[in-house]
Structures are given as C-alpha cells and as structure tokens.
C-alpha cells in the first residue's frame, strides 16, 4: 500500500476548509488583540525607533 492510498482514504478533502477557518480565527484574534486589548500607549516607543538614531545630513 502506497502513502497516497492511505492519505487518499483518510478523508482529508476538508483539510483546506479547516485551514481557512483556523486562519480566519487567527486573523480575528490578532485584530482583537492589537486594536482592542492592547493600549495605544504601548506602541509609542516603538513608533519612534527609526527616528532616534542618526545625525542629520551635512549641508
């Protein structure tokens, strides 16, 4: 018996649909976390990271 026979009999046709649902739940959870649960203030430091390094260009 080949691996493909076993997998073919395993009824994995709904595999992708499960994936879709799992992905959607993950997506919803991330949105919920970022926008509802965590406060705006916690992002302020991170936002300014690129700006607190270099000297200005010579002119």
């Amino acid at each position, binding site marked *: 018996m*080949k*691996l*493909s*026979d076993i*997998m*073919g009999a395993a009824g*994995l*046709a709904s*595999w*992708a649909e*499960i*994936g*879709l649902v799992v*992905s959607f739940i*993950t*997506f919803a959870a*991330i*949105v919920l*976390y*970022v*926008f509802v*649960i*965590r406060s*705006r203030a*916690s*992002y302020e*430091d*991170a*936002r*300014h*990271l*690129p*700006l607190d*390094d*270099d*000297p200005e*260009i*010579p*002119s």
Partner: protein
Amino acid sequence: MNVQIERFSYDDAIVRRFTLVTFVWGVVGMLVGLLVALQLAAPVFNFPPLPWLTFGRLRPLHTNAVIFAFAGNAVFAGVYYSLQRLLKTPMFSKTLSNLHFWGWQLIIVAAAVTLPLGITQGKEYAELQWPIDIAIAVVWIVFAVNFFGTIARRRERHLYVAIWFYIATIVTITVLHVFNNLVVPAGLFRSYPIYAGVQDAFMQWWYGHNAVGFLLTTPFLGIMYYFMPKAANRPVFSYRLSIIHFWTLVFIYIWAGPHHLHYTALPAWASTLGMLFSVMLWMPSWGGMLNGLLTLRGAWHKVATDPVLKFFVVAVTFYGMSTFEGPLLSVRSVNLLSHYTDWTIAHVHSGALGWVGFLVFGMIYWLLPRLYQTPLWSPKLAEAHFWLGTIGILLYIVSIYAAGLTQGLMWLAFDEEGYLAYADFVETTMRLIPMYWVRVIGGAAYLVGALLLGVNMLMTWRARPRPLAVEVHEAPALARAYTDRPEPISPLVTSGTHVANLAYTLDRFFRTTWHRRWERLPLLFTVMVAVAVIVASLFEIIPTFLIKSNVPTIASVAPYTPLELAGRDIYLSEGCYNCHSQMVRPLRAETERYGEYSKPGEFVYDHPFQWGSRRIGPDLHRVGGKYPDLWHVRHMDDPRAITPGSIMPAYPSLLTTPLDLESIPVVMRAHQTLGVPYTDDDIVGGTDAALAQAATIAEAIVTQGGPEGLADKKIIALTAYLQRLGTDITRPEPVAAEEETGETPADAVADPQETSGDGAS
C-alpha cells in the same frame, strides 16, 4: 543599576557597495528588458542566427536580473543600513557581510552567463541550474547568520516592525527556494524537478507567487516602514496597523499561489482556495498602503520639494494599485479573460517599476548624502529622474493593459455564426504591435531616468570628503536581565470587588504583558513566522500531493521516447515556455482553437511541467500531428516564411547544430530515478532508439520535399517532441490494460482507470 555606555560605529562600506551594484545590475536588467521589448515589437532584434540572444533565453535573464540582482541587492542595502541603526549595533561580522556581497554578485554573474547559453531548469523565476541554486542557498544562509547574529548583539530591546518584515523574508525565501528547487541532476548543467505535471505546477506557483510576496513585497515593506518615516521625519502613522499588516500578510500571502492556475488541470478546489485568500489580501495590503501614505500627514508640503518623498509617495500608491489589481486578477471570471495575456505583464510592471523601482530610487537618493557625507549633487536631476520614470511607467502600463485586454477579448470572440472571430492566432498578435512600440518608448524613458541616478551617484561620490568620517555612536549595552515596566494595576484589584481567581488570570492574559515580552524575543518571533508560513503551505500542499483522485491516470499516456525527451530538453533550453503555453483550458473558445482541453493525467511524466503563463504565441498542447514534420522544420528556420506577421524568433541554428546523443542515457536515468517507468534495457538502448526514430522523421521530411541530412540535428528531436505533444489521449490504450470498456479516451478520463504507470505520486 550600573549602566555601561558602549561606543561603536556602523559599517556603511557594505551599504555603499550594495547600493552601487543595485544601480549597476538595475541598468543591466532594464537594458535586457528593453531589448526583449524590442524583440516583441520587431523580431529582427532576436539577431538570428545567434541563438543566445533570442527572446526565449533573454526573457529569463531580464526577470532574474531585475528580481534577484536589482531588487535583491537593493533589499540588502536597505537591510544593512536600517538593521544596524534600529538595533544600535554594527553588523555581526564584516567577513560574513563581505562573503554575502561577493557571493551574491558571483551568483548574478553565473546567471548572466548560463541563461543566454540556454542552461535552465525551465521553470519561471527558478531557471537557474542546481549548482547555482546551491550557491544561492549557501549565500542566503551567510546572510541569515549575519542578520540574526546582529540581532543577538543588539542594544535595543524591541524589534521594530521593519525587522519583522526582514525576518519573514529570510525565513520564507529559504523555504520556497529549497522546496521548489528539489531536483535530480543529470550532469552539471541539467536537472529535472522531483515533481511532475500538476504537482510541479502547484509547487512552481506556490514558489512563484510567494517569491513576489517575500522578495518584492515584505522586504520592501520593511524598507518602507524604516525609510519613509526617516524621509518624512515623523513616526509611522499607526504601529498597530503595521502589526496587523505584518501578520495578515505573512499568513495569507502563502496561500494565494494557485490563483495562477485557474481553468488549468489543477483541481478547482486548490485554485478556488488561492482565489479566496488573494481576495482576503486586499485588507492587509491596503492597510499597509494607507499606513505608509498617512505617515506623511502634516508633511505633504515636503513632497512638493523633496524628490525622495515624491518617489516614496508614488511607490506606495503603486503598491496600493497593484495589490488591488492582484486580487482582482485572481477572481476566476476575471482570470478567464486576463490569463495568458499581456494584462498580467502590465500588472507585474506596475508593481515592479512603480512599487519596487521607485521605492529603491527613493531609498538611494535618501542614502547618498548620508553614505557619502555630502549633499546630493543635483536634486534637480533627481526630480527629472522622477518625472521621466513616472511617464515611462504610465506609457508602459497603459499600452500593455490595452494590449492585454485586446488580446483577451480577441481570443474569446465568436462571430454571428458561432465560429471564432479571429481563428488565426497571428491576427491577434499583429494587432498588438503598435502597443508594443509604445512600451519600448516607456521602458526607454524609465531606463534613461535610472541613468540620471547614475550621474547623481557618481557626482555625489566625487564630492565626498576624503577620507569619509567614521561616526562613533553611544548606547547602553542591553542588560542581561530585563525587568518589564510594572504592569498597570488591574481595575479588578483597585475596585475592591471580590471575583473568582479565574477572572484575575483572564484579566492578566488579556493585558498581554506576555506578548510584549514575546516581541523582544527574536528567536521565538522567527519560529512563529516560520510556523505561520509552513503550516499554511502544508495545508495547501499535502492534499494536492497525496490525494489520489486529484490526478486521475490515463491508461494511454506513456513516457516520452528517448528522442522526444531530447527534444523536450531543447524546448526547455530555448525557453519556449516563455511564449507558449501547453494547457488548453476547458472553454469553448480554446477547444475550438486548439482542440480537446488538457487533462491532469496527461502530464504525469512532465518533469518539469511546461504549462507556461503567457501566450505570445499559440498554445502547443495539441500541436502534435497538426502539421507535417516539414512544417516544423521550415517554421523553425524562418517563422515568417510560414506565418507572415509572426513575431517568433528564427532558429536556423537548430537545423545545423548536432543533437547531443551522448546525454540521452543520462537524462533517461535521471527520469527513471524520478519514477518514470523506463527499464534498464530502455536506457541502454536509448541512443539507438533515438537514432532510429530520428532516421524515420528525417526520411519523412525528405519525402515531404524538405532538405536532406537532418537526421542528427537538433531540429529532428524538437520536431519529434512537438509531434508527440497532446497525442497520447487519442492513442489506443495499451493491450495490458485490464478493463476493456470500449470507452473513448476522453471518457476514460472522467472515469479513471488505475494503471501501473502512476508517476504522479
């Protein structure tokens, strides 16, 4: 606590080098692009009889040069500059940086030599042969070690969002490159993918689509998130949106690949899934675009005067446009019209010229004064570059959108009597020529703009102070132990109400201090990205590979003869797939034009698949037996003598170059390893069998009034292959087939028979 202040300098020499080669390879890639654009407008630019300048060989050179050389080096320049500064540390190892730089340039040179020579794997954007693929993997690992080593030595705890995008790039490209390039070599310059037909197509577009996603999108988004705030001198509009942008993109993108295969022999569930996820991509993409544009709020007046911001604004706008259009094209009914036409080419170029190109140019103009410690030589010239480039893009895409729509509508059109309105394919080609000339003008304008960048680079470099100052920075070392900021006190505690313990736990969970920790842990973060990418890929790939009913086998489909196999190698090597598909879609307009639609079971011996993605010329899947052998000989020798108006390159050298007979057993052995049922006797007698078949075909050509002495020439093998294409389903089934049903072969597909010739799994 005693805080140790450390002093350090950034390595900008490596950034200067990557910036320079970005420009150099960019010009090379665009120049080749201009040449292939000319070849489509006027086939004389294929310069027959030189075989190495034909469209089929140069088009892969163009795509590889602009993707891996221009965009690739630009990514490295951007990463090396921003990573050091975001982490307040120099790169992990200068040696690794240099190895990375020189290794990558050597790979590009190897590509530039092998592709015109016709050394190719025959898969779009994955043409480079296996020794180069291994070199790519090694250099990529060098880059990854250097990158993660730098993260390990950082002096800034938090990884800024740009770095997340870089991590996603490194992880995903590794996975894609390895799995799409699993091949069995047959010598140094030849190899065959372990996948065949449907599976190979599936892997290829999983790779092809995600290469766009993770080499031309995520790293450039990282660059956008760093350089755009720098140029505008204000923080990114919404850090929250950038997190959503990141995770949704990483998670969703990986699924979208099969939308490249609508109406093909790929099972419909797979392409539908690809379509659904593509439509979902609208959200993160537009979130990211708006985040970029809104970063400029309050700074819009600067856009009028600053060429850097001009480039960035147009780049991000094109990102929005192409990520709107991509999902649109993935919708099955739109794809029906757009697939195989120039519409796709216009879409790709609005992304490549607009988004990638302009973002790179903006970044380089921003970097030049900082890398050479002197003001930009001429902002006016940069301004001129911007306008030339913008006009160039518009000329290119408007004309090619028009060409795509024209082509698509003409292919599908029927007249009042129900016949194809444009039955002769070349009619649809000739209609496009004026638009192809407009593209040449647009492309030339874009290239001239890029050359102006070169002038500015040279002059800015010349004005640099000598020696360049090495700036010393200071930052405290990252403490080994890190104490989080105190958690905000829960209202549950302060209010004095009495609640169950579970409520405290839940409250703490939703306050997600744990997640803030997690953002500072690069290893865990990287693992999460890898899991997201790999899990999503497996969800899609496993069913295609293992569920048997996906590829019904067809009893009469047999392996290629040795001569046909040699002919197929010539087909691959000449890059015929760049212009011809081998996939008749189940649409009346196509079955009328080409013949019976293609079945998944017909491709089980195709290593690699050759379905193609574009029809500059007609589909070839049912070309077998359509014309006499002599027709193919004459057509290859001079296409316009047979089909006036054809834009196919002439291949007179195929009629004079001897066929490589020695490699036939080697190639057959490689195919045997891959599961193609050649016996050892078949392989031993391979060369003789090829010679015998070649003699028969050569004789037929002479009988039909053609030239003599072709029996040992390449043209004979190619003719044998073309005459075989798509004929298996009309052949009688082998006698050994156990069930004798009297079905037509087409019925046999609907009710597949189990045969031993299952090379698909």
